[in-house]
């Protein structure tokens, strides 16, 4: 009988000690923020385009961490979706938007037509448009993520999304490359 009592007492004491230890550890080594959301965010393309329905990549990453669908990022394409699927451990699913040809584009303002309304500046999520009221605006192409958000607000429709031109530095080697032929075309506006 005493043996049982001793066992119960000892186990209770042990449980208390470990409980305190765990409670202390949980407080002491508490991780701030959601590590999964951060990892997901690192995979997203950071175009901040809002095509997922969230105001930026971070909110969408948090939503994914909370169980939202992973196929809402057209700029990331299938590759990003698969990576996220790997990370959060869900099955890959086809992108909800029809996947266009993944061509990187940047905004370009036809400066002669710009009336300086600053609407595009307000729309740009990464502050890549330079200009002031009643003065011409221009896009800092190095900062442009090609998110398209500036195109709709423009009252005079002077913003074009132009594909980034390939240079010898960005050129990708291609197997069985067909020799490039120079085709003369009309210069754009």
């Amino acid at each position, binding site marked *: 009988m005493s043996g049982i009592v001793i066992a119960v007492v000892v186990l209770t004491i042990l449980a208390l000690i470990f409980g305190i230890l765990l409670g202390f550890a949980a407080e002491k080594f508490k991780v701030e923020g959601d590590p999964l959301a951060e990892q997901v*965010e690192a995979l*997203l*393309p*950071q*175009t*901040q385009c809002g095509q997922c329905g969230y105001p*930026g*990549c971070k909110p969408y990453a948090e939503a994914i961490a909370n169980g939202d669908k992973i196929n809402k990022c057209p700029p990331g394409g299938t590759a990003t979706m698969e990576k996220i699927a790997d990370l959060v451990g869900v099955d890959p699913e086809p992108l909800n938007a029809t996947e266009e040809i993944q061509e990187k584009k940047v905004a370009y303002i036809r400066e002669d037509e710009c009336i300086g309304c600053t609407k595009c500046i307000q729309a740009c*999520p*990464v*502050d*890549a448009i330079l200009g002031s009221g009643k003065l011409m605006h221009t896009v800092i192409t190095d*900062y442009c*993520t090609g998110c398209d958000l500036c195109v709709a607000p423009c009252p005079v429709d002077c913003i074009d999304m132009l594909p980034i031109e*390939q*240079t*010898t530095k*960005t*050129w*990708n*080697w*291609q*197997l069985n*490359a067909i*020799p*490039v*032929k*120079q085709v003369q075309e009309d210069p754009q506006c």
Partner: protein
Amino acid sequence: MLTLLEQVDKGTLWRSHGGIHPPELKTLSSKTTIANFPLASHFIIPIPQVGDSALLRIKKGERVVKGQALTAGTSFAHCAVHAPTSGTITAIEQLPSNHASGLPVLSCVLTADGQDESIETITSDLSTLDNQQILKLIQNAGIAGLGGAAFPTHIKLSPVSDIELVIINGIECEPYITSDDRLMQEYSDEIISGIAIIERLLTPKRIIIAIEDNKPEAIEAMQHSLNRSELSSDNVRITKVPTKYPSGGEKQLIQILTGQEVPSGAIPAQLGMLVQNVATAYAIQDAVINGQPLISRVVTVTGLNCETPGNYWLPIGTQVQHILQTSGFKGDLSQDKIIIGGPMMGHSLPDVTAPVLKGTNCILLPSTEEIAPDQQEMPCIRCGECAVVCPALLLPQQLFWHAQAEEYDKAASFNLHDCIECGCCSYVCPSDIPLVEYYRVAKSALRTQSEEKKQADLAKQRFDARQQRLEDEKLARETKAREAAARRKNSMASADKNVVAEAMARMKAKKAAQSNTADSVAPAPVQDKKAQIAAAIARAKAKKASATTATDHPVGSDDVEVDPIDDKKAKINAAIARAKAKKAQQNNPSAKTSAPDVQVNAVDEKKAKVAAAIARAKAKKQLQADGDKTQEKVLVDNDTALATNTVPNTNKESTETTLAADTKKARIAAAVAKAKAKKQSLTSDDTEATNPNAVANDSSTDPAAESALSPAEIKKARIAAAVAKAKAKKAQAKLEEKE
């Protein structure tokens, strides 16, 4: 245990891993001396060839002379480009580049004038120059590594750490190419003096000139030159290196000569070593001593499709098609390849209009016999041959698997970046897999990925910064709004007080008027609406009065002043009333602290005038019709009332009193007086303010003023009255609506 330098002095050689022995085919071009090439009519000089930031120093249509710099740059990395001959810049545009992609790059088109006029070259004495001046000369001459990579030499020659060992690379291990071989044979003295300049700049402990043993003439010539030179033979030695491809690679050569391996991702300078090409040494000498910029280089033009293979001094910017024409290209452009560089590492040229660059050491025009047609790629059989020959000690088949599966991250984990793309693996592959092509694809994909990552990080950073900014702005706006609200509240409090005071004053005035059993006249119009209402009331009353006076029995007159028959008297009376009103008006501004009437009246002047005109007209009519003394009584009463009222009712507007008995008449009179008062309130400030008391006290002085109202004006006044009536009605309607 011997130290490294002792071993170097002994000429010890190490074995580098892998490598192959492809057919050399160098005799094709190595037998003839370096020839000059007939000058082309057009040159294409891409800008910038090396280094990114440069300013164009010439304009389209400008004439340039040979050796004139076309670009200027402020950055340290800038490597100038020069005009290869004299002529005119006919275009600056995007033109096909000498690159595997053939993509256009910004280039100057120089149309030669055939005179080949040169800029004045300044020859300098080496002993008078300091190291910085020498480096500046090298930079201004636009010297870049002539071995193929075309890295700016002045950067390489100003290392941050000490250089112990300088290796002069005369290996030239690729098949076909003999440009360095010929250069060493013919210009050994110049090369040695170039090496002397490098020695002066870097003061290394040892300099090794490494030449492959398949170039005995070059070794001999260099040895002679070295013996003749002032360079100490203790420090500088020529080392014969066994022929093997790719021992000319920088890392491979270091391993062969010193047994040390350059770590992955490191540069030789971190080991205290530096490798320079012999042709670069020659160019340094030419630039520093002769003041000649780098505008031409030795290029091997060879291959069985070439009628006159050999080495030529080619101006940089010469178009490949000119070379083809001059050297007798036998092949067919649509089928036969033109290879820039050697057969192992070179690339085929997509467009023959592309120019010769600083890094172009060979133009290979192979016939179909030399270059096997593209073989069908077969599956990898895991034979491991590629791993045996890989000079970088990589696992080519693993890299291939991952590259093929597009698992570039895994390929990168197998040190894909250390691949020097020498082509040994492809050369030995029994399945004819173009391994290097796979690696190139994988490498560019990885580069794109890292670019995108960088871009994404930047975008995120900027997005966060913007969010922060918007947040800050919002906060700032809110604080500002709060402050403004507080301010408004403060000022509102005082304004409210004023409003309350005014309202109180109005109430008092009303009370006073009521106590006088007379119509109270609206206070001096604070708003035009009030004025209009007042006018409307006055008019309505006047109308009523005029309607009734016809039937009214005239009141008998005992007043001396008034002559019932005389119009003039009536006028005088009107004038008196006006004067009284004026007086009252005069008193009011002085009593009141705030004078809103002044500003508002100015706006409302016209309307008030009209109203006054109506009232006047009515009054006149009345007077003419009645001619009785009621008016006078009223006026007299007014006089006394005003005299007493102005003191107690300081805030009050002009108030008229009438006799209690005669209400109708009195009302008419009140209306007249009111109108007058209104008019006076408009004009009193500027016209009659100076003399209010005189007018008020002496009524007999006023006929002159009243005489303005001639009978002719009566009609006008009527019209005005009609207008005013309409307006008043409108105002009334508005007011009601408001209420």
